[in-house]
């Protein structure tokens, strides 16, 4: 079997809130093979974005943030590197697309400047070469009149176009791993489909691996090879995309899938999961989903083990009652 390109081992991130340490993620593990897409799903506040941010070393190195575990890229633990050393990887081998296209671009610099920046820094291109590559990238993300658009400012672009620009920026140096943090959440549905399609196409072309964070099961179904379902900072189920949709194990995954409105089911109201994600400070001991679970029993006061589904090597879940 080939080595994974990117690998997260026992990643735990804690924040100090009001003098108390709270765990935002606990022992997150995943492997990413070449040209593979991993989706991380879960409700807001379950630790998805934090995980991605720490993969690029974007969490500030402060006394009130504590990170444990390993983030391995080609065998190098990124968590051990200084900011300066990290900059050799960020934007070059590893890059990221963010959720908010409206605010993620710098308003006072032209789109061209923002795309070519990483080319100038990482690939030591000349300005002319970078410009050529930049226009090529704009064409690739299907921005019409790329030449003209290259020297325009972000406010002259619509939301969907800005997200395309963000994608162009992220792809500029041909990254090996692309992190996409809810890249379609802020866009309207038709644009969402276009952006997803674009990402899939680009992935096929460049052979890159992708970690996509989303809470949209529809997105998962259309792009993912592997899925990581997170709840309250823990991975509660991980499996291949196919297995997850065909035979979900964890009650939370089932509830999430159930919450998707489907045209073939005639119902009066949308299904939802009662209650809210517990806050970092108010995490229940034992199974973290126990406060909202239908199958809750006495056992759930203890932390459930990670179980492997019989016959499916890479399908794991954390639950007592399956």
């Amino acid at each position, binding site marked *: 079997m080939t080595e994974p390109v990117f690998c997260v081992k026992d990643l735990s991130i804690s924040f100090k809130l009001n003098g108390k340490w709270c765990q935002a993620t606990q022992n997150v593990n995943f492997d990413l093979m070449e040209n593979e897409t991993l989706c991380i799903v879960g409700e807001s506040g379950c630790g998805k974005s934090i995980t991605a941010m720490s993969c690029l070393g974007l969490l500030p190195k402060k006394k009130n943030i504590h990170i444990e575990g390993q983030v391995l890229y080609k065998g190098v633990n990124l968590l051990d590197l200084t900011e300066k050393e990290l*900059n050799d990887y960020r*934007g070059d081998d590893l890059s990221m697309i963010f959720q*908010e296209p409206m605010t993620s671009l710098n308003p006072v610099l032209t789109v061209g400047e923002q795309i070519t920046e990483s080319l100038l*820094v990482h690939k030591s291109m000349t300005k002319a070469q970078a410009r050529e590559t930049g226009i090529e990238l704009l064409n690739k993300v299907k921005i019409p009149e790329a030449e003209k658009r290259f020297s325009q400012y972000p406010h002259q672009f619509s939301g969907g176009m800005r997200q395309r620009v963000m994608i162009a*920026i992220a792809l500029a140096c041909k990254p090996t791993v692309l992190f996409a943090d809810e890249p379609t959440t802020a866009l309207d549905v038709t644009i969402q489909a276009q952006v997803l399609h674009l990402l899939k196409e680009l992935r096929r072309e460049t052979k890159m691996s992708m970690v996509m964070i989303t809470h949209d099961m529809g997105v998962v179904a259309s792009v993912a090879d592997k899925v990581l379902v997170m709840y309250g900072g823990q991975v509660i189920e991980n499996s291949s995309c196919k297995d997850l949709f065909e035979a979900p194990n964890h009650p939370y995954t089932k509830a999430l899938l159930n919450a998707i409105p489907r045209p073939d089911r005639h119902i009066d109201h949308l299904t939802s999961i009662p209650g809210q994600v517990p806050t970092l400070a108010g995490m229940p001991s034992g199974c973290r989903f126990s406060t909202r679970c239908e199958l809750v029993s006495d056992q759930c006061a203890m932390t459930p083990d990670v179980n492997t589904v019989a016959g499916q090597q890479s399908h794991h879940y954390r639950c007592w009652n399956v």
Partner: protein
Amino acid sequence: MLVFTLKRLLASIPTLFAVLTVIFVLVRIVPGDPALAVLGDSASEEVIQEFRKSIGIDKPLWEQYLVFMGDVLQGNLGLSMATGKTVVEEVSNVLPYTLELTVASIIIGVVFGIPLGIFSAIYRNHFFDYLARMVSLLGLSFPAFYISILFMIYLSVEWDWFPVFSEYIPWSDPLTRLYHLALPALSLGVIMIGYVARTSRSSMLEVLGEDYIRTAKSKGLPRNMVVFKHGFRNALIPILTLTGLYLGLLMGNSVLTEIVFNRPGLGGLIVGSLESRDYTMLQGLIVTYAFFIVLANLITDISYGLVDPRVKNND
């Protein structure tokens, strides 16, 4: 850019008209008869009527307004009641002194205040930040005249580095003129440093928390590039606005500074005309101040266009 500048220029004309109207009304609603103020209680009715006619306040209000506006537009602010010279002549004699003082202290404030604020934002909660915040707090909390007096006592009287009093010095001797300008400009500049540094710090802190800074970091750009290329230009926008606004504050403080240093300037003129109840002079001075404040706003507006592409293109 040219079109943008012209548009801004045109837009400031109505502002100027409104300001002039307000000044006209203000001067008219001040209680007391200027004729009585000038001629005294014992003046006969005839003399009073004669005087009113001579300065044009016997006419109906709308006519006075038209005459006033017409005069101002032609650059005629009337005759000083105290000296008999034209107000324009009196003002333009001392105006360069006030302008050079104001401009010099803005330059001092910007040159020292912006770096101070920016670095204290970058090194937030480190030693340098505390030091810089203390310096700017000092600038903010000392009244202008107090700083002026302190500077004068130590730098001029004790150590004899600077002249104690300023005087009229012709432009033909620029070095001496600059030498006399130094201390007053410094004492006003210290206040500006305080304001500008505080604004720069908070503006930079806000910008450093923006999403596009995270994007810049995720591109693996060196720290200096993230802070200066991506951060600083964005932080500059609010800094410009507030520096423009502080100009009004500076003009007020310059009056006190000029008096403490006995510098020629609008300050001395204001105090003089208040003492002698020289209404036309006062009115002319307010018009002058208003004109420069509108001008400062215009310059601020135009400089936005240079820094922020959104302003230029939306127009």
